[in-house]
């Protein structure tokens, strides 16, 4: 395609008949020159009439929320209806977000990227942008996280002039990849990621094109859900268009134009102000890691993909004297032949949605926050692949651990300032993610993703335990969904769903608890199932002596006697509880598959096979020996804590009374805790001595293959990180792995 640059006035669809590209270029130039959105110095509308300004914002914001709450009822997908995996937002002509609804807010910035991509590629000339057009995108290298998040973007015109964009996103059930589900594990190139729409015009005159509709019928499994999701997005966008038109009719177009620029600059200033108000300038280092266990897939994946690997996310946050907020992944490991690479748009969206939950939850949330942040996403790393053809099928698998340090970094700052009410010990991995596909219980080719993972436990706060089973870092309104709703979509029954003991990170305040679901394949001859989650590593860690939440495992029991048990009304498992005394294993006959391969290709299951999903809890905060002993006893009595850990972890001595209830032995607890403190000192060594010991191991490169490869990648991609590693261990400048 020939690229043309049109910066002349009088021919475009933008303001004053300018082209959209010239408007975008001007916006970027003014920001580069002044550091302020569109170079705005004074928020005149806000200063002159603050009440009107706030009302304007509220009306537009209300329009977004109304669009979401109404449109989600069109969808038939439980992911959208039950969990609320959708979001709507309003953009400037240049593609900067003005305001947004609740929901999966990560996409507010990804859709901004998609709009700007269309502008930069001169869509105005070809394929043209007209009132009533509908553009659809799910290409992460343009502006998205992965194929499963499908966006519709509609231009908004007023008297022949493009005055903005309405956009909506939903997470779809299936994307038509070779492997079933919305986020299949196994793609190693984008060619395998499924149906991809690269900001394609799919409709005009407010109707979808017939050729597109027909294509969708065979492009994905369950096209019924795909099309209803699309109608959901379009309906929400149409409601936004109407809301904007109402505001313009009442306030005037010139006021609207002034407002949408001021409110973004207001958002930027608000972000900077919050940084200076709540944090401490300095540098925060909060690295994290994620394992990929494709080593067991030899023969199913090519050699470059069939190996165990370890992702390195050396996240640092640098807060400058003027409130500059720099986020860097310098030293990140390389992109890879797996399904978890995360393009910059996904990374920026992920950061954005996290910050709206901690630093900027209260004020005008829009792309102003984006303009206030500087990102360093090293080119060639998993966070900015230099191969545009790598897979991004589940970019979240790296993105979620990658940012697990953001809450902890900010919490260190909050503790410095005394804003203890804001402190939280990170976010958990939002998994185990259960996905699958195959012939469904309606006799059709099926695919599904269970979103009960959006209700993991939150991490501990400075002054209280984390909350149980309620949240996901990517959707602040977590909801696990009714089991009956999932059973409509999935040919698996729930035998049980309950709190999982020890699923939180221990600490003075423990993380919120996760839960477990026992599923049985039912009313289908076969079904492939996936697990997804970390297994060999912890995701992040706790704060101030708190421990991380547990690392996962995979457990299925195949060829079971469940049919016989059901027919003869015999006991069957409704829980698992403890891997060392598994109730699931104890109450069914079958072939156990249990290991730490928590990321794997589709695993065949037959009818009556059982599958365990253990959903993560949050990290702990503070020293376990400072936990209120009565809270430990309460956890015992309420089934949150397995009895043997009261003493070994918390130093709490408890006994069961005649009624079977646990009671505290306060005196013995005090003695045990004192002994454990002494043991800590006796069993530990000075750090400087330990470094000298470990240096030998490092010199000998005594690491398992995934760890060695991780260090190799980080050192080869980043001379800065390599120098840091060598300097810490006192290695020669030419030392390498």
């Amino acid at each position, binding site marked *: 395609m020939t690229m043309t640059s049109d910066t002349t006035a009088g021919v475009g669809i933008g303001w004053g008949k300018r082209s959209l590209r010239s408007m975008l270029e001007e916006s970027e130039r003014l920001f580069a020159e002044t550091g302020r959105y569109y170079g705005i110095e004074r928020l005149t509308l806000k200063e002159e009439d603050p009440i009107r300004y706030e009302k304007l914002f509220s009306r537009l914001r209300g329009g977004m929320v109304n669009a979401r709450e109404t449109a989600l009822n069109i969808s038939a997908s439980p992911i959208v209806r039950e969990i609320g995996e959708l979001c709507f937002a309003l953009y400037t002509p240049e593609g900067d977000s003005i305001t947004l609804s609740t929901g999966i807010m990560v996409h507010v910035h990804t859709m901004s990227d998609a709009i700007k991509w269309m502008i930069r590629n001169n869509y105005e000339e070809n394929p043209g942008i007209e009132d009533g057009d509908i553009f659809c995108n799910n290409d992460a290298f343009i502006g998205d996280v992965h194929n499963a998040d499908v966006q519709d973007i509609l231009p908004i015109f007023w008297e022949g002039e493009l005055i903005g964009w309405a956009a909506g996103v939903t997470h779809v059930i299936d994307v038509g990849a070779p492997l079933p589900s919305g986020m299949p594990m196994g793609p190693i190139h984008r060619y395998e990621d499924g149906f991809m729409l690269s900001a394609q015009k799919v409709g005009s005159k407010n109707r979808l094109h017939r050729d597109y509709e027909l294509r969708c019928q065979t492009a994905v499994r369950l096209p019924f859900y795909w099309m209803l999701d699309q109608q959901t997005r379009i309906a929400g966008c149409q409601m936004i268009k109407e809301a904007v038109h109402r505001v313009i009719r009442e306030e005037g177009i010139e006021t609207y134009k002034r407002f949408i620029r001021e409110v973004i600059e207001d958002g930027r200033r608000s972000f900077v102000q919050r940084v*200076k108000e709540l944090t401490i*300038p300095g540098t*925060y280092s909060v690295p994290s*890691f994620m394992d990929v266990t494709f080593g067991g897939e030899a023969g199913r994946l090519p050699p470059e993909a069939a190996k165990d690997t370890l992702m390195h996310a050396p996240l640092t946050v640098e807060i400058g004297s003027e409130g500059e907020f720099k986020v860097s992944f310098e030293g990140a490991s390389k992109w890879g032949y797996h399904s978890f690479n995360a393009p910059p748009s996904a990374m920026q969206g992920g950061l954005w949605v996290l910050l709206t939950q901690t630093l900027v939850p209260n004020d005008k949330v829009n792309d102003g926050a984006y303009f206030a942040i500087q990102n360093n996403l090293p080119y060639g790393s998993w966070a900015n692949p230099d191969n545009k053809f790598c897979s991004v099928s589940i970019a979240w698998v790296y993105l979620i651990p990658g940012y697990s340090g953001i809450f902890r970094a900010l919490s260190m700052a909050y503790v410095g300032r*005394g804003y203890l009410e804001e402190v939280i010990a990170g976010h958990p991995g939002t998994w185990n993610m259960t996905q699958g596909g195959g012939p469904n219980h309606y006799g059709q080719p099926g695919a599904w993703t269970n979103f009960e993972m959006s209700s993991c436990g939150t991490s501990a706060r400075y002054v209280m335990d984390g909350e149980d089973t309620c949240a996901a870092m990517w959707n602040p309104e977590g909801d696990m969904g009714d089991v009956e709703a999932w059973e409509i979509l999935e040919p698996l029954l729930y035998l049980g769903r309950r709190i999982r003991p*020890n699923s939180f990170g221990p600490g003075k305040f423990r993380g919120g608890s996760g839960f477990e679901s026992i599923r049985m394949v039912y009313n289908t001859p076969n079904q492939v199932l996936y697990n997804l989650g970390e297994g060999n590593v912890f995701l992040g860690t706790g704060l101030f002596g708190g421990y991380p939440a547990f690392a996962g495992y995979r457990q299925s029991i195949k060829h079971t006697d469940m049919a016989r048990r059901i027919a003869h009304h015999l006991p069957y498992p409704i829980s698992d509880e403890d891997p060392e005394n598994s109730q699931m294993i104890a109450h069914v006959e079958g072939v156990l598959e249990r290991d730490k391969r928590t990321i794997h290709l589709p695993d065949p299951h037959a009818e009556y096979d059982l599958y365990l999903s253990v959903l993560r809890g949050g990290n702990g905060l503070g*020293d376990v020996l400072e936990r209120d002993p009565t809270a430990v006893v309460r956890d015992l009595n309420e089934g949150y804590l397995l009895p043997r850990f009261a003493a070994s972890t918390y130093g709490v001595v408890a006994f069961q009374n005649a009624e079977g209830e646990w009671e505290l032995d306060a005196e013995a607890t005090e003695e045990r805790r004192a002994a454990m*403190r002494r043991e*800590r000192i006796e*069993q530990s060594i000075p750090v400087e001595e330990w470094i000298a010991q470990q240096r030998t191991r490092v010199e000998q490169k005594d690491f398992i293959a995934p760890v060695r490869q991780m260090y190799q990648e980080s050192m080869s991609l980043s001379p800065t990180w390599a120098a840091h590693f060598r300097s810490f261990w006192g290695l020669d400048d030419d030392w390498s792995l």
Partner: protein
Amino acid sequence: MTHYDKSTIADLVDGRLEWPQLKAMMSNFKDPDRFDTYIAVLQERVPWDDQILLPLGPHLFVVRKADGSIVTKSRSGYEFGDYRQNWKLKARIRVRDTEASLQELYPAMMHCTPGWMELREYIDPLDGTLLEVEAVPPGYPIIHSFQPDLETFYREWLGREL
């Protein structure tokens, strides 16, 4: 302008506020005098007289000693050296890198796999308090979690000399 009295901040530090009150604090505008009130509360709680300049956690503080030097110091009174250096280098360490040691905290199957990752416990040499836990692969350089720009914070953000 939002303001909380010293007893409220003391209750916050001690975890005595009920959730509705805590939630209201989160939703409300922040109180600009929080830092000074907070430091005053903490200063009364430590068993030494050095001036707290910046809390780093429940048990760790950046303090100014009588000789004017600025160091990291724990509640127990242990001094970790110049505040610009990583305090962990002067702590004690215990590493959980075996199944037996990890299973004091987690059930089997529910902990990291030794070789992939280890838990490093940084311990106060005086009283055995667990100050921080790192979860990292073997060989990972010790993390310098927070390097505050103390001078900028005091001079430019608080508007007073350090």
